[in-house]
């Protein structure tokens, strides 16, 4: 009796435990120096995004009426802008804005894209055709135009930029996920699972999803870079976050009229964008190298 209870308890932990196993993930990442470096940079940037408001020397929207367009100095490390705001503080605050917009946008993309992709691949047939033709149609319009049209419809604001960017990359994301799901669907273990009589929801949940998480993660990272660039681009043409929000693209837009008078205005936000995007992209690349089904055997 005692024996039996013991094994049952053991069995329960067996069956429950690692539905999402450890992936041997971090070990692999460590192997990749680039990944490590970019991860560190990203971590640093995220920390700045979180604590930026506390370490910023000035209020990012407060003008110093005595200091319009001042170059970098001890008082204003990166200088001030045309209406006397501290550029350094604005860039620090902007980190959060930019990251939040980009990550939320990708969140939208991933949520919708994954759903469409997985359903399309799993259900197949007419639904697949229909969804994919819709994606084709959306793909036919350049992402930025689609985003512009959406912003035009919703009105320019940070939230709407987020939604627009999120929506505009759904088609390509959905296609990637669909392809990844199809690979999993045609794999031996899904067939084996079906042959046992496992129900569909179980297969999607425990066979398909865990196996596309890697791919999902990689694509997600790769899309974040694009989303940051798009956020900034919308800001740059004045359709993203609205002034005085210290969003980097918006700041660049404000700085573009001062290229020859105040180089720092256009230089630092641009640099900030480049560094973040570079770090995210490198991480994405490294993750792809690690998880690419082709390099992985």
């Amino acid at each position, binding site marked *: 009796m005692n024996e039996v209870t013991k094994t049952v308890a053991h069995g329960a932990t067996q069956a429950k435990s690692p539905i999402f196993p450890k992936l041997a993930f971090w070990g692999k990442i460590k192997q990749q120096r680039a990944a490590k470096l970019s991860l560190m940079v990203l971590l640093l940037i995220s920390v700045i995004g979180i604590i930026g408001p506390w370490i910023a020397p000035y209020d990012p929207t407060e003008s110093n009426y005595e200091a319009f367009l001042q170059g970098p100095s001890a008082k204003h490390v990166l200088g001030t802008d045309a209406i006397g705001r501290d550029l350094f503080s604005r860039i620090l605050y902007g980190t959060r804005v930019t990251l939040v917009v980009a990550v939320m946008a990708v969140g939208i993309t991933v949520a919708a894209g994954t759903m469409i992709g997985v359903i399309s691949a799993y259900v197949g047939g007419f639904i697949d055709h229909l969804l994919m033709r819709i994606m084709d149609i959306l793909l036919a319009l350049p992402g930025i135009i689609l985003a512009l049209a959406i912003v035009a419809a919703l009105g320019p604001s940070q939230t709407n930029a987020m939604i627009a960017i999120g929506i505009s990359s759904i088609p390509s994301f959905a296609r990637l996920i669909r392809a990844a799901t199809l690979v999993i669907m045609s794999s031996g273990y899904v067939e*084996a699972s079906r*042959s046992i009589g496992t129900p569909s929801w179980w297969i999607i949940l425990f066979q398909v999803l865990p196996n596309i998480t890697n791919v999902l993660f990689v694509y997600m990272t790769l899309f974040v870079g694009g989303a940051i660039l798009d956020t900034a681009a919308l800001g740059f043409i004045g359709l993203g976050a609205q002034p005085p929000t210290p969003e980097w693209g918006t700041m660049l837009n404000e700085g573009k009229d001062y290229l020859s008078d105040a180089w720092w205005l256009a230089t630092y936000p641009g640099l900030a964008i480049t560094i973040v995007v570079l770090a995210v992209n490198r991480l994405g690349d490294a993750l792809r190298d690690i998880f690419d089904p082709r390099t992985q055997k």
Partner: protein
Amino acid sequence: MTTPILEVKGLCKLFRMKKGWLQQPHYVHALNGIDVSVYEGETLGIVGESGCGKSTLGKCILRLLDPVQGEIRFQGNEIGKMNKNEVRAVRRNMQMVFQNPFETLNPKLTIGHILTEPLIAHCVPREQRQALLEETIEIVGMSKQHLSRYPHEFSGGQRQRIGIARALILRPKLIIADEPVSALDVSIQSQILNLLQDLQEQFSLTYVFISHDLSVVEHIADKVAVMYLGEIIEFAEKEKLFGRPLHPYTQALLSAKPITDPDDTREQIVLSGDLPSPSNPPEGCKFHPRCRSRMEICKVELPKLSEKEGHSVACHLYQSFAAIDSS
């Protein structure tokens, strides 16, 4: 005589191929009127060249694919007409082992989890699961420590054992083994074949054993069906078939099989040409373009499978079966 545990009659399967919206779809005749039956405790071997429809047959029996025509009776019940839930219930008694042990195990799940899946799918009470799990893993020659590991930690032979354990855990009556040893090295292959034979004895299993390797089939099967382009062209007990193959194709197949005997002096029949594509098979007997003893009739008329003394063959040479005695 008792009724066969599995009986397949006139099974047909088409795959629709369509290149685009504009094109007329054309069909691949993967299975074309298959008749075959297995009795309890027997091993039915199915041999044939690549693409002749062996796997398709296996999948149709399990209803992983829906046949277009024909009957599949398992323990007297017609599977082809069942709905989804009934099929799932039947699968409890009918399981499959796959060719590639590297692909059929989900890399993200532990062995324990993989083996539990069928138990959950068929609502085995939670209390019994662990005991079954441990018992089964030991039956296939592994230990329960292995349950918490991931597939990539095992060698090919061990993975195939896990695959067998998964098929076995519900204690089915029938196992369809689709080339279970083709991906394995000779030295490992023999371990698995032995295991399969042991299990058959222990649980009085029935096997449908699919392979393209004649030696393996010859070793393990009781009855052998030879397939060519979606059709069974010869079906007999192993001894009869290997001892006196009737169909020219079977003869060629047997003679082409390389054997490890340096003094072997048998005459080799080397077939000319390739296996034709199943999407546009030749008229008449499908084998006639490659056949040595082809006759005029072969080009126009499809021979039927006819039986004598438990030896069936589909060939015009034996249509009256009088020829058997004379040959």
